[in-house]
């Protein structure tokens, strides 16, 4: 599977930086270059979060408008171009998840067996590279806690939703997340 990390570490990294700087200068072709490189992965990420094709494409659409508006604030010294783009994408998708369309999405959720989310979370772990430190560190977490972290990222679930999904009290879900994230950070240090 072509991976974003591979793209991001290659010479394409410079090209993506240049494309964002081009957007800041108002060059439409630069935005199109970004689109050609990143739109399929962006659509994949948005689809995984929203699970509806139309909403995912809408999020990609809105993300490109935001990239165009915010390109002037991008600074390659502070982070990778791809990370910058995916941060905007995730934020846009989270807004949709938290927004008015929430109700429709909730209906979708109900139709999905909890087991499928568990499978999703585990397959996400497996999709990480064998040599990935993130994978190694996630592997060390207790399965339920790992699932909480992965579901939060994958589906954009809030503490409350996670608690409901995992069948534990809200306070427990919050404490799990907090401790798991601390463990993860220490492990990745």
């Amino acid at each position, binding site marked *: 599977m072509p991976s974003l990390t591979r793209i991001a570490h290659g010479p394409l990294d410079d090209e993506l930086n240049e494309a964002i700087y081009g957007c800041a200068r108002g060059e439409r072709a630069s935005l199109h270059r970004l689109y050609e490189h990143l739109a399929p992965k962006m659509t994949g990420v948005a689809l995984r979060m929203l699970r509806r094709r139309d909403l995912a494409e809408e999020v990609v659409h809105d993300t490109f408008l935001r990239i165009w508006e915010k390109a002037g604030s991008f600074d390659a010294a*502070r982070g990778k171009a791809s990370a910058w783009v995916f941060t905007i994408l995730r934020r846009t998708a989270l807004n949709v998840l938290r927004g008015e369309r929430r109700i429709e999405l909730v209906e979708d959720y109900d139709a999905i067996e909890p087991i499928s989310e568990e499978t999703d979370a585990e397959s996400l772990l497996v999709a990480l590279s064998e040599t990935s430190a*993130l994978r190694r560190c996630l592997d060390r977490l207790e399965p339920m806690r790992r699932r909480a972290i992965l579901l*939060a990222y994958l589906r954009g679930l809030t503490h*409350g939703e996670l608690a409901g999904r995992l069948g534990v009290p809200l306070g427990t879900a919050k404490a799990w997340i907090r401790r798991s994230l601390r463990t993860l950070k220490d492990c990745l240090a």
Partner: protein
Amino acid sequence: MSPDERERLASEYVLGLLDADEERLCEELLPVDARLAALVEEWRERVAELDATAPLVAPDPGLWRRIEVSLEGQASPEGARSGTLEPLGGIASPRRTAGRGWAKVWWENLALWRGLGLTACAASLLLAVGLSHVSRQAAQAPVLVAVLLSDQNQPAAVVNAFRDGRTELLALSALSAPEGKSLQVWTLWDRVRGPVSVGLLDTLRTVELKVEGLPLPAAEQLYEITLEPAGGSPTGRPTGPILMKGNASPTGTGI
């Protein structure tokens, strides 16, 4: 904010776990709290690999055209017209910040408020104490009173202005600035002149405000308290979130 709390906020912000209030708080703090911004960046790097595992999905062939059509309806990007490119958000972010403006930040910031430990209960209790204090001063009653409300519309402090211009702040709530921050009191009576600092505190308490040299307070004059870097705003203007604010109203005593 304690280091632990900052870490939690950063990690849960990146994961997308925060509720709307905390998310807004985090986004407001990001431009002013460099440590928080650095932690957020670190967490993004930590979990970025997860995005890489998403499958490639070819979007609808018409999607690019739709984006182009939407762009037609927009002005050129911020900064494009100037022809210069300022890294570090030199163009887009300040404009965005300016758009939100100090006056617009208003009560957006519920969670910060909670984070700072103000409770409605304490506020009400202390309001009673504050009011009795006011009544004890009936002999020299203020001519103007401004009740500063939190974003939850809870009275958090009162500003009393007296006939001779003397102005005091009465704390109605227990509120302390987090480490590395100060509470700064501002007043605004003239949009052209802009807000003027009249006090700097670590903890909300009853103090006399520094109004020497300022015109006598007038009805509708604005008082507010913002969260600023320790020692006060470096720009001389409010830069941080507004914790409470209120406009002065004339009392029965008359100006």
